[in-house]
């Protein structure tokens, strides 16, 4: 077994509203990523995907607060660290984060190489500027970005180019974990493909040791990550390898999500899209039992008051449901 890059144990974080109500947006989430592996996180809007990303960085600002659990990056526990320490010692070198609108982070009055100087100098104040420039040149050419970009201002670049530049800048220190939160949703399909190719290249050449990729676009996750984790109302409902998650989902919610995939391929027109009725629960007062019970076709009376345990099937496959996996598979087979 290779080295574990990121380990998260029972992480719980909450938002505290103006009226002092606690909203647990990430609720007892545990995950593990090995070196060289990538994990995709899927789920509806508001299910806690992005909050999980923010929580993993250990960078908490009101209204987001840390509650309990451990975040261990390459053997180093960062949970409970002060935001200032996190920024100085963790961000950039251990863990890097790319939000959806990352390209808007570039200051229009500065040239691209200046941002790279900033990142490197923030972690090593004695670094030589000439060396930094050489390193940046080499990295850009390795990633297939034109080297002239370094001497340009952000306004001279297209949207897809800016996004790729920001990814290159934020991974310049070769972080152990890269968290990409919808990095390609604002781009057209061609630029999206370039971003994905670059992320894959970075994984292959070891510039990043592991990756978490967040998106609601399932065909994209299927092609990018090794494993997929489905979140619902702040909890993990199922984790499995990408192929089995897309073709043999087990949890009724995953099943519903996979039924909404549309791709331009033969046979897709004959499939019926499944819509999941209803809306997710309000996390201010989450339901006592299974959080998906209200919308579930296969709901049993005890689902509504029993806490659902995570059932581990081995090989990294786990799911959270009151039905046994044999029973779920039988029910799905009967429907076809």
């Amino acid at each position, binding site marked *: 077994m290779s080295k574990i890059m990121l380990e998260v144990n029972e992480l719980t974080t909450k938002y505290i509203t103006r009226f002092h109500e606690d909203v647990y947006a990430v609720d007892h989430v545990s995950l593990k990523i090995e070196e060289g592996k990538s994990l995709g996180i899927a789920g509806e809007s508001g299910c806690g995907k992005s909050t999980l990303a923010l929580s993993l960085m250990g960078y908490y600002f009101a209204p987001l607060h840390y509650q309990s659990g451990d975040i261990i990056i390459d053997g180093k526990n960062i949970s409970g660290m002060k935001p200032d320490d996190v920024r100085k010692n963790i961000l950039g070198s251990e863990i890097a984060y790319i939000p959806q609108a990352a390209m808007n982070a570039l200051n229009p009055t500065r040239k691209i190489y200046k941002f790279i100087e900033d990142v490197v100098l923030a972690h090593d104040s004695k670094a030589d500027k000439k060396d930094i420039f050489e390193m940046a040149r080499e990295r850009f050419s390795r990633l297939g970005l034109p080297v002239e970009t370094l001497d340009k201002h952000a306004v001279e670049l297209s949207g897809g180019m800016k996004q790729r530049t920001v990814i290159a800048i934020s991974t310049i220190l070769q972080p152990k974990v890269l968290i990409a939160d919808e990095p390609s949703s604002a781009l057209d*399909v061609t630029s999206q493909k370039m971003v994905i*190719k670059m992320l894959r290249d970075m994984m292959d050449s070891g510039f990043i040791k592991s990756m978490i990729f967040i998106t609601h676009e399932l065909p994209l996750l299927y*092609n990018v990550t090794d494993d997929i984790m489905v979140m619902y109302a702040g909890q993990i409902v199922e984790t499995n390898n990408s192929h089995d998650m897309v073709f043999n989902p087990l949890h009724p919610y995953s099943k519903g999500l996979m039924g909404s995939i549309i791709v331009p391929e033969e046979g897709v027109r004959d499939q019926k899209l499944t819509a999941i009725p209803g809306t997710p629960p309000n996390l201010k007062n989450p339901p006592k039992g299974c959080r998906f019970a209200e919308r579930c076709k296969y709901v049993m009376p005890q689902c509504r008051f029993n806490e659902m345990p995570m059932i581990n099937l081995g090989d990294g496959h786990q799911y959270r449901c009151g039905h046994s996996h044999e029973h779920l598979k039988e029910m799905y087979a009967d429907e076809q």
Partner: protein
Amino acid sequence: MSSENKKLDTRPLCLSGKGVTKVFGTGNKANVAVDHVDFEFHEGEFVSIVGESGSGKTTLSKMLLGLLNVTEGQIDFQGKPRDISSRSKKNEYWKGIQAIFQDPFSSFNVFHKIDAVLLDCIAMRGGRNLPKEEKIRLMTEACSFVNLKYAELTNKYPFELSGGQMQRLMIARIFLLKPKILLADEPTSMIDACSRATILDMLLQLRDEVGMTVIFITHDIGLAYYISDSVYIMEHGKFVERGTADDVILRPQAEYTKRLINDVPKIYEAWDLSTVG
């Protein structure tokens, strides 16, 4: 041409255009947004116009709606040249064509309650003097068509609803108005995948039950393939390919179409990352 397309071609034309062009600016600053496009949309047809940002699909949709003037070319509505030269003629035309946009919030007056929006639609159909009970019955029917409860919506303002609910309310408006043509400009791009299926189902239902022509404008080629009878692919203001959905997506001829399909992530075949850029 496949048999499916021949069957469609026998239906009467609903909206058609010849040499439709839009030029913004003049002289050396002229910018041709839509360049001599021809199209024929038949009654009850589900048509998709697919293109990337900047291809001119929204400009074309605004010309179809009569919100922008056509620089050159002619648009026929139900077999006759379209006349929108005056305000009253435009209002008459808009009884035949209605639209849903990407951002439902931009389509509602924030100071008007939901009831006022729906009552407007009833008035537009000539129901201004209907008794109150009849109006409520119509509104309830429209809301239940889109799986909303009228009792929960009445007396609410638009900002109190979620994006998905608002988009469904837009469809309830269309259900009340029953236009000949519905133009849907990226109606699902702000909605996540699970609610998207619901919206698409409703559009198909409108087409089947009311017999509407639906013109669906999107950048998502997979979505266009799933939902439409025929597909038009647009690049730099021109249609580079048109035909039945199966012909265009499974047997593309134009280089641009091939590239678009190639760049979308797939699940049944391998997604080739080497041919990028």
